[in-house]
């Protein structure tokens, strides 16, 4: 109501001032006034979009800290809670600094098909002026800070695979290199100007990835699997019991992830219009359906629906809907979520045990598997009615996914998925090899037994000595 009143008031003011100036200076032409009005309308839209995008940037940061930090922190043993949370938090610091220097430029400055140039190094030329290729209504600086939040959470997701056994120094170096050598090129290929997978700027293999199914989840999830394999299992795994030390913390973290994901997906509309609404709705529906999918699978198999399973399912659904969120309606979203919930449960509960790798917190089982199935299903369910991203020379909307009648798109999705997998595997292996040679990856066995909180950081998560009571 107040908004309506204010709009009315603004309109009245506009009419009054327009009439006033007309009476005073008859020389001001109709055209000038129209031009001014158009500018004001554009400014108003720009302000609305900017407000929304800044909010979304904050929401995406909330996903890493505290969201992911709590989610992962609760899943490890008590002696490793701080070191696990620190792995997420360190990304908020390290990736930010790198992003300012070269990361943003490598991802989003014009370059070749695989990586951006250095035009925006040290954020040169990234200011109040929008970059119309990416988002025409918001300052490029807003776009830059929004994209930074994605660059932060992606490596943080990997940390679930090597939790409880990697040196902090090795982790920091690995993540810094990974951010520049795997994340930046992948982001450039899918979202950057001239990227070979870019769907909206005419890439060679236009891959539909609205909010980062390939860029964020496949790269991080597959890299996680490589890390888990390369580092080897935790001491005592799988014989020793390593149950989560606090499902309560994980629960809070997962719910924060769910909320933050609205910024992640709906914000990827890069404006505050109806596309953002559509992505918001799809995101929510997929999360709900996946929570049901995972919990129901467990219920059937083990006789009980667990809390950890339900929240893990929700996260899997959020992962799977990420590439599809801006291209599908609510019903396909429900379906994608349901499939992802069941599939990721199967990956985590059966496939992991079958192969015996120690992906400690299931970064691959949730993000790698969920991201892959989501990226492929996007090629099935993407609809031009939701988002007319492809058009012919005359500007007519072309069909997107299989349900739309475009069978070719699944192939493009597959190309995107394969490139993401290959880049993640090769890049991660090379970086691990390098870091292993320079500083070594794993903590000594006795430190692992003692816990990383004390041996890496000199602290304890829960200080329960009598003297502290």
């Amino acid at each position: 109501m107040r908004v309506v009143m204010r709009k009315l008031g603004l309109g009245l003011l506009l009419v009054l001032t327009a009439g006033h100036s007309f009476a005073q200076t008859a020389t001001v032409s109709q055209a000038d006034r129209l031009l001014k009005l158009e500018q004001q309308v554009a400014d108003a839209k720009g302000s609305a979009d900017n407000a929304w995008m800044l909010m979304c940037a904050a929401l995406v940061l909330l996903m890493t800290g505290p969201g992911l930090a709590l989610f992962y922190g609760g899943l490890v043993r008590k002696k490793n809670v701080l070191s696990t949370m620190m792995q997420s938090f360190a990304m908020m610091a390290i990736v930010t600094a790198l992003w300012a220097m070269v990361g943003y430029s490598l991802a989003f400055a014009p370059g070749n098909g695989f990586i951006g140039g250095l035009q925006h190094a040290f954020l040169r030329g990234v200011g109040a002026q929008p970059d119309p290729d990416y988002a025409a209504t918001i300052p490029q600086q807003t776009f830059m800070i929004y994209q930074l939040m994605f660059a932060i959470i992606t490596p943080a997701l990997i940390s679930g695979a090597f939790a409880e056994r990697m040196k902090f120094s090795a982790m920091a170096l690995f993540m810094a290199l990974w951010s520049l050598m795997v994340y930046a090129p992948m982001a450039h290929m899918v979202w950057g100007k001239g990227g070979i997978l870019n769907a909206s700027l005419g890439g060679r293999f236009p891959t539909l990835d609205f909010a980062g199914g390939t860029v964020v989840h496949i790269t991080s999830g597959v890299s996680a699997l490589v890390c888990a394999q390369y580092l080897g299992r935790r001491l005592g795994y799988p014989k020793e019991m390593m149950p989560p030390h606090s499902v309560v913390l994980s629960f809070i973290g997962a719910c924060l992830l769910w909320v933050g994901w609205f910024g992640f997906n709906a914000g990827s509309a890069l404006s505050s219009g109806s596309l953002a609404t559509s992505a918001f709705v799809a995101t929510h529906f997929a999360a709900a359906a996946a929570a049901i999918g995972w919990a129901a699978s467990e219920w059937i198999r083990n006789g009980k629906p667990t809390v950890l399973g339900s929240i893990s399912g929700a996260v899997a659904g959020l992962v799977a809907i990420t590439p599809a969120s801006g291209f599908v309606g609510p019903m396909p979203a429900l379906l994608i979520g349901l499939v992802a919930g069941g599939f990721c449960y199967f990956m985590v509960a059966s496939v992991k045990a079958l192969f015996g790798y120690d992906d400690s917190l299931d970064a691959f089982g949730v993000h790698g598997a969920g991201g892959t199935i989501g990226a492929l299903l996007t090629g099935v369910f993407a609809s031009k009615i939701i988002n007319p991203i492809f058009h012919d020379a005359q500007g007519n909307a072309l069909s997107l996914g299989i349900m739309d009648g475009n069978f070719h798109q699944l192939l493009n999705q597959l190309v995107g998925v394969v490139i993401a997998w290959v880049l993640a595997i090769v890049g991660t292996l090379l970086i691990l090899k390098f870091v292993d040679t320079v500083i070594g990856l794993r903590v000594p066995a006795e430190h692992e037994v003692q816990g990383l909180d004390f041996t890496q950081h000199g602290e304890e998560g829960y200080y329960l000595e009598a003297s502290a009571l």
Partner: protein
Amino acid sequence: MTKLEAVIQPAKLDAVKDALLEIGVEGMTVLEVRGHGRQKGHTEFYRGREYSVDLLPKVKIEIVLSDELVDKAVHAILEQARTGKIGDGKIFLSRVDEAIRIRNDERGVAAL
């Protein structure tokens, strides 16, 4: 003097405590412990993986009693802590040579 140690189900603590105060027990020490007897443990599932938990949470009450209170105390615990199912716990009795009150060096039953 006799020391009574009772391991009971945590849920029964309040009832047992009240019953002990009722018969004139002056003080007690209560510990949160973990353990199992014949009951063994149970299984939990985390992300599809089965974990067997064989040490279950229990409460242990320690009281040192003057000898005439022992039977009453045992009775009170049996009455309050028994469900008839496996896992109800156990009571242990042992002799105590001396009790000393730190505040004023009182000795024996007077220190209880």
